[in-house]
């Protein structure tokens, strides 16, 4: 049953900074997300460097569909639904590899790497040459396009072109990886599963309020010492105490008071960025000199070059420029989300730099990451409490800096619409507000119109 427009607007309030808990566990809402969001949006499939040679392929999720992203003879890329035209069996069962053909292991229908049906057992004897092979190839996605090596596809033939969909914020996010050099994916995508709703995993990427507590054990390590805040700038933590009553010492975390050290982008289709500026945060690899390069100056405006925070390309692609990593949140049901981490390194990087990137990629995020170890249980518990009859009536609170965020939106600038402030919840709230618009099933034009940010958030 479709959730009506009216109801959707009651579920997310931009004015009050509140979100209704039912959006995380209601099965009807999940179904509608599959159709209205994952069935229409451009979705990240892979990076071109994952499939350099003819016949190289990876499997990627698009909602409940799986597609094979395959490098073609002419160097182009195709995304084919991984389902046989005969009776639907998956024609490929490997996560990745190199193929000359895809032969279905059910009855043997065989497709070339472009998806053409090239072999049918018994075409002559059993089908009497009456089966129109040209009509039964593997189906492609509605549209596929790339931006600076990042491959995306959509199931909606009426979706706007990729670059237009990405908007200034999405393009800036991808450029923050692309501008770091001639970037390639390091072999090995980390994949793990968290029993949580996908929106918690997205909400959290904008959340610079949680590291000081959630990741306190990691922030206390020497390894993250360069992220400690000078004592004078730290937030007031009076009243924060453990169950034994111990006051916590917070070494990391956000600056408080009047320290305007954060930049937020809020943009069309729900794309957003949030996080510190480069003056307050360079990440654990310790260098962001790429932001001053010729290439970065051409691709990014002056505001974006200062933004060191995390981008989300709606709905589920997180870009973390400081670590040279991107992370996909893959919904597998209202209570289950897979996390896929891709790590990049410049092809020309000297061995020491490569080793440092690798060490950070393996130790910050991912299932064993010194930070990310702590995230899953929070999201899991937050998801499960949305099912309690009494618990789910309590709205979620996203009121930080609410009503104080002045949006600077110069449509002639290459910089995205932005807010300068301290730690805030604008990125999350903007994502939920856009989510409600997507869910209404409105046209692409209406969706773009309704997701232009107001002057104040």
């Amino acid at each position, binding site marked *: 049953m479709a959730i009506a427009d009216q109801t959707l607007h009651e579920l997310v309030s931009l004015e009050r900074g509140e979100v209704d808990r039912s959006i995380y566990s209601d099965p009807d809402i999940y179904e509608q997300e599959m159709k209205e969001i994952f069935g229409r949006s451009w979705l990240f499939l892979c990076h071109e460097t994952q499939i350099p040679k003819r016949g190289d392929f990876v499997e990627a999720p698009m909602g409940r569909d799986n597609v094979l992203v395959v490098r073609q003879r002419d160097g182009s890329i195709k995304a084919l639904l991984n389902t046989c035209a005969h009776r639907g069996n998956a024609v490929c069962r490997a*996560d990745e590899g190199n193929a000359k053909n895809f032969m279905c292991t059910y009855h043997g229908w065989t497709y070339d790497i472009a998806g053409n049906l090239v072999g049918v057992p018994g075409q002559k004897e059993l089908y009497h040459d009456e089966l129109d092979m040209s009509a039964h190839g593997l189906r492609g996605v509605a549209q596929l396009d790339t931006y600076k090596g990042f491959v995306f596809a959509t199931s909606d033939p009426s979706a706007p072109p990729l670059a237009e969909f990405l908007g200034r914020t999405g393009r800036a996010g991808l450029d923050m990886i692309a501008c770091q050099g001639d970037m390639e994916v390091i072999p*090995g995508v980390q994949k793990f599963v968290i029993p949580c709703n996908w929106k918690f995993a997205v909400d959290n990427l904008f959340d610079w309020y949680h590291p000081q507590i*959630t990741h306190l054990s990691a922030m206390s390590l020497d390894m993250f010492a360069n992220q400690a805040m000078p004592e004078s700038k730290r937030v007031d933590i009076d009243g924060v105490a453990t169950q034994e009553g111990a006051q916590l010492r917070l070494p990391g975390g956000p600056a408080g008071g009047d320290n305007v050290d954060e930049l937020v982008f809020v943009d069309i289709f729900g794309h957003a960025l949030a996080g510190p500026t480069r003056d307050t945060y360079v990440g654990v690899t310790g260098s962001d000199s790429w932001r001053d390069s010729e290439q970065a100056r051409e691709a990014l405006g002056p505001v974006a070059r200062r933004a060191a925070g995390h981008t989300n390309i709606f709905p589920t692609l997180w870009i973390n420029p400081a670590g040279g990593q991107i992370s996909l949140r893959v919904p597998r049901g209202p209570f289950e989300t897979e996390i896929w981490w891709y790590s990049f390194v410049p092809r020309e990087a000297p061995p020491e730099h490569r080793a440092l990137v690798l060490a950070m990629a393996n130790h910050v995020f991912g299932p*064993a990451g010194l930070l990310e170890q702590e995230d899953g249980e929070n999201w899991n518990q937050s998801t499960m409490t949305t099912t309690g009859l009494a618990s789910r009536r309590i709205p979620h609170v996203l009121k930080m800096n609410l009503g104080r965020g002045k949006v600077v939106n110069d449509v002639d600038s290459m910089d995205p619409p932005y807010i300068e402030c301290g730690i805030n919840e604008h990125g999350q709230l903007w994502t939920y507000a856009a989510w409600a618009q997507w869910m209404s099933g409105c046209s692409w034009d209406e969706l773009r119109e309704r997701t232009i940010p107001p002057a104040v958030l």
Partner: protein
Amino acid sequence: MTVDTSTRAEAALLADALRQFEVERFYTKEAALLDAHDYEQWVQLFSDDTHYFMPIRRTRLRRELDKEFTQPGEMAYFDESKEFLLTRVAKITSGLAWAEDPPSRTRHIITNVRVVEDRGDELEVHSNFLLYRTRLKSEETTWIGSRRDLLRRTEGSFLIARRHILLEQTLLLSQNLSNFF
């Protein structure tokens, strides 16, 4: 003659059995330290030049099985020097690591211990493990796989000079890896 041969065979078997006993005793002690959350003692079992590595595994066709696991220098789940292992131990014992507070209940079962090469001062040892974990009310995880260790002989015991952990999973079916293997 025949007596002599069989005595020599017996002596070799006995040496094998003793070595097997030494290795298994070492692993039993190691597992007990982990299950008692005594990570400070546990990490001392590793040599300073150790490499503790759990690669990423991908489902690949049989003809491409040589590319199933990522290699050192590529992405992994664990890729630890001794220093990183010490960092992890410092974190878990800080009292601030919420992923292990309340602590997971774990049980390490180590079986099929096989010395595949004995170079005198160093042994190549393969073993199978089952790591069972429960957390909170109903979270339950079972990890099964094999360990490929390089054990270095040291006064009456061993140091782990290399551990490669091969898990029987591609997509990790757990929300994190906050325990040691």
